[in-house]
């Protein structure tokens, strides 16, 4: 029987003689009383990514490992994981770069668990809905997208790949289920900067809330975790700046809200 190769890459080439790494992989299936870790030993090459290694584990050692991925280049946002306690995109994180013989792999935090390393992202997406910005939107460039300034501005939000790493890293999302969270607040800021048909004032008011922009405590863990340069913490601070400005303006009898 011929070996069936995974489409897209050759798992055999990721293994090379050299140091073996111990992968401690989080395991959980619906109905288990509690999750547990399972260990797999794997040789890796210099360019083996965590995703390569996990796929090799699934293909060669344990076909019951549940794993999710798509694009292999950190632009789809699917393979977000916690690797050695830090949020990372598995497809671009090289095993040797982690500088540790033991690689602990867990699903991203603060989302519902489906199985093993896969979370249900419905809670994550619902937050975008709450601010009125559908997470699936028609791609329509702004009129000035052709100019250098326009392109930079345009790509700022489109950077967000909705991977959920920011919500996983945020200490407040970890403790408070009602906090809107960095991803949606960054999206709210982008919608205020560039409404494209949405009402920016409505979004400002909605997020000017105890559970909105004011719940952030400037830990900046979200911006550190973000693989796509969204800088959600920065966006939250700019949102606040605008909210204070609007409050002052309305207090001083300026623009009606």
């Amino acid at each position, binding site marked *: 029987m011929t070996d069936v190769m995974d489409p897209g890459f050759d798992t055999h080439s990721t293994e090379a003689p050299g140091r073996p790494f111990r992968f401690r992989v989080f395991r959980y299936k619906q109905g288990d009383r509690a999750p547990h870790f399972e260990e797999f030993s794997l040789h890796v090459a210099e360019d083996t990514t965590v995703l390569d290694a996990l796929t090799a584990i699934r293909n060669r050692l344990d076909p019951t490992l549940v794993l999710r991925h798509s694009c292999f280049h950190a632009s789809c946002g699917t393979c977000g994981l916690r690797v050695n306690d830090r949020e990372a995109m598995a497809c671009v994180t090289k095993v040797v770069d982690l500088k540790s013989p033991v690689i602990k792999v867990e699903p991203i935090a603060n989302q519902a668990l489906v199985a093993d390393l896969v979370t249900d992202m419905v809670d994550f997406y619902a937050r975008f809905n709450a601010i009125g910005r559908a997470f699936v939107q028609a791609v329509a460039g702004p009129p000035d997208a052709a100019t250098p300034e326009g392109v930079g501005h345009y790509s700022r939000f489109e950077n967000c790949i909705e991977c959920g790493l920011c919500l996983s890293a945020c200490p407040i999302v970890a403790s408070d289920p009602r906090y809107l969270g960095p991803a949606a607040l960054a999206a709210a800021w982008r919608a205020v900067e560039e409404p494209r048909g949405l009402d920016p004032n409505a979004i400002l008011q909605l997020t000017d*809330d105890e559970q909105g922009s004011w719940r952030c405590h400037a830990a900046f863990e979200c911006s550190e975790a973000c693989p796509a340069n969204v800088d959600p913490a920065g966006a939250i601070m700019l949102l606040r700046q605008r909210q204070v400005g609007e409050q002052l303006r309305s207090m001083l009898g300026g623009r009606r809200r």
Partner: protein
Amino acid sequence: MQEQPAGGPNRTRWTPSGEEQKHTWGWVLQAVTGMLVLLLVTLHMIANHFVVQRGLRDFAAVVAYLSNPLVVVLEVLFLVVVTWHGLLGLRAVLFDFGFSRRVESWITRVLWVVGVAIVFYGLWLTWVIASYH
């Protein structure tokens, strides 16, 4: 306005807290009182530890200190501002725990009572010391 969904494990609806935009000012006050505390605690430290013998005022020195009305005003202001900042900060930390809105409004009420009690205690104590001659 928006109703909070009933507390439960699978809470996937996000709704805002429903209160009007007081929160901006809550936070701005925290920042303002914080800056004031930084200033006033420095003055307080200097006045009580750096311009006195042995770095600590004995009873007579305390009475002398509080005989100056400007000092009384500053110390009372300091007490109000630091109590406000501290208790609002405690409230913020507790609110990060994700309690229900009922619990949260109880926390707010209790902290208000504690804060007012502290300020009244401070005023009483100042009056007691100031009336020592």
